[in-house]
């Protein structure tokens, strides 16, 4: 480690680390030698990337397939208005390099998948999981366990956040618990709303991502006690924090007593998002936004039902009759069984659920799902409408 040298500019830049007795130049050398892979450049990725680069982590890999959108800017403070439409990894790299030119940034403008995960992650010593969905959470976990690297984890929902360090190998050769010890299986799709449906307070990923960055730095330098084996919970609404113990599960399929997972699997299918779901949906008739426009302009009577929540309706609507998803059965008498009925939501998922329910339970045959929902309408039919 002593062969890691610093220039005069670097010594001055990192001087506030160097004068912390338990951190000092040894800690800074470890940071410079470290290679950290940050998966996801969203709300968590923003503070994570900014603090890891500012702290002097020598090599940072960034994986994200997405482009910057308006609705990101409420919390993804790495990006500016001018970045809208740009690949996130490109905008992130530019911003980070401007902040610290002494480090190396490697970008992967792609989805992190079972196919490319090993190739990407095998170049790194620590993974930081800032992703936003269950399939990728399990993928990141399994990659970290199979490659034997720690996975610094944070996750958020609305006003609530979780942070821990998974799969941490300590100095005595013991490995801490991983995600599958805590949650053997993901919730069924739809039970836990995503932030896109449930919302998230913009500061929350800033707080959790900063805590995550702190844990990454502790894991690399060995300073202090990191969160391995402990789950930190933060409720921003009531300002309550708790730290709970995470136990290893002997039935863990990756590294329990009888491991059954020895390679990466199909995580979409594992999370119930696979082909089965699509097959079920073949019974739901779909129309695109252009067809809806022509139907509405035609002579035939059409009933348009919006199954989103009232607060979503207040943001934007296309004059549909508002019957929120959970109230549909109470308002069943208001749904026509004679006319064509088009059901829509934000993106087309909830409306398909509603149609499936009405067809199975009540035998409706005149229901059509608006594919792409009001988002697609705002993209293709009326671009003056806001997207959220």
């Amino acid at each position: 480690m002593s062969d890691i040298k610093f220039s005069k500019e670097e010594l001055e830049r990192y001087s506030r680390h160097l004068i912390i007795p338990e951190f000092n130049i040894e800690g800074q050398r470890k940071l410079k030698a470290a290679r950290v892979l940050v998966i996801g450049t969203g709300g968590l990725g923003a503070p994570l990337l900014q603090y890891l680069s500012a702290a002097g982590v020598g090599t940072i890999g960034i994986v994200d397939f997405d482009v910057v959108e308006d609705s990101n800017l409420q919390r993804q403070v790495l990006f500016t208005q001018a970045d809208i439409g740009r690949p996130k990894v490109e905008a992130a790299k530019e911003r980070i390099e401007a902040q610290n030119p002494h480090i190396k940034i490697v970008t992967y403008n792609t989805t992190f998948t079972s196919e490319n995960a090993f190739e990407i992650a095998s170049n790194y010593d620590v993974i930081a999981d800032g992703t936003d969905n269950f399939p990728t959470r399990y993928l990141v976990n399994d990659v970290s366990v199979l490659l034997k690297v720690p996975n610094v984890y944070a996750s958020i929902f609305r006003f609530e956040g979780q942070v821990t360090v998974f799969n941490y190998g300590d100095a005595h050769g013991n490995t801490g618990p991983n995600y599958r010890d805590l949650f053997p299986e993901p919730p069924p799709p739809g039970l836990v709303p995503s932030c896109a449906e449930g919302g998230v307070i913009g500061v929350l990923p800033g707080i959790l991502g900063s805590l995550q960055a702190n844990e990454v730095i502790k894991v690399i330098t060995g300073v202090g006690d990191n969160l391995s084996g402990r789950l930190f919970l933060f409720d921003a609404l009531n300002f309550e924090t708790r730290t709970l113990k995470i136990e290893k599960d002997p039935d863990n399929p990756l590294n329990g007593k009888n491991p059954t997972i020895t390679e990466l699997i199909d995580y979409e299918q594992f999370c119930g998002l696979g082909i089965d779901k699509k097959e079920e949906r073949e019974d739901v008739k779909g129309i695109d936004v252009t067809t809806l426009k022509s139907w509405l302009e035609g002579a035939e009577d059409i009933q348009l039902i919006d199954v989103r929540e009232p607060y979503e309706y207040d943001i934007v609507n296309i004059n549909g009759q508002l019957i929120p998803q959970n109230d549909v059965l109470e308002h069943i008498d208001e749904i026509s069984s004679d006319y064509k009925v088009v059901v829509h939501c934000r993106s087309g998922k909830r409306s398909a659920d509603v149609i499936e329910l009405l067809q199975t339970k009540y035998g409706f045959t005149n229901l059509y799902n608006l594919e792409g929902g009001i988002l697609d309408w705002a993209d293709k039919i009326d671009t003056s409408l806001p997207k959220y």
Partner: protein
Amino acid sequence: MIRHKKSNTMATIIIPTPLRKFTDNKAKIITSGNSVGESITQLGELHPDLSKHLFKQCGTLQSFLKIYLGDRDIKSLENEETPVKDEDVISIIPAIAGGKTL
């Protein structure tokens, strides 16, 4: 020290954000069970919609949830039989993932 009678045990169950839609948005529910199992059963009686999401049809806890007494997973204690003392805190911890629409 005054010992409360067992039947007067009052524990608090903390409901996580994603499940509050089943508890009329209540974050904390007071129960009087003597064990974690009794307390969770009481919670289910108060909020039947919630109990459907806590347990599988066979009656075991869903794999995407954890129940903690204080800072310990009840699996590492005595599971549902774990005794509850006055002013104990029971937490239901859900898996949460973040932002993407699934």
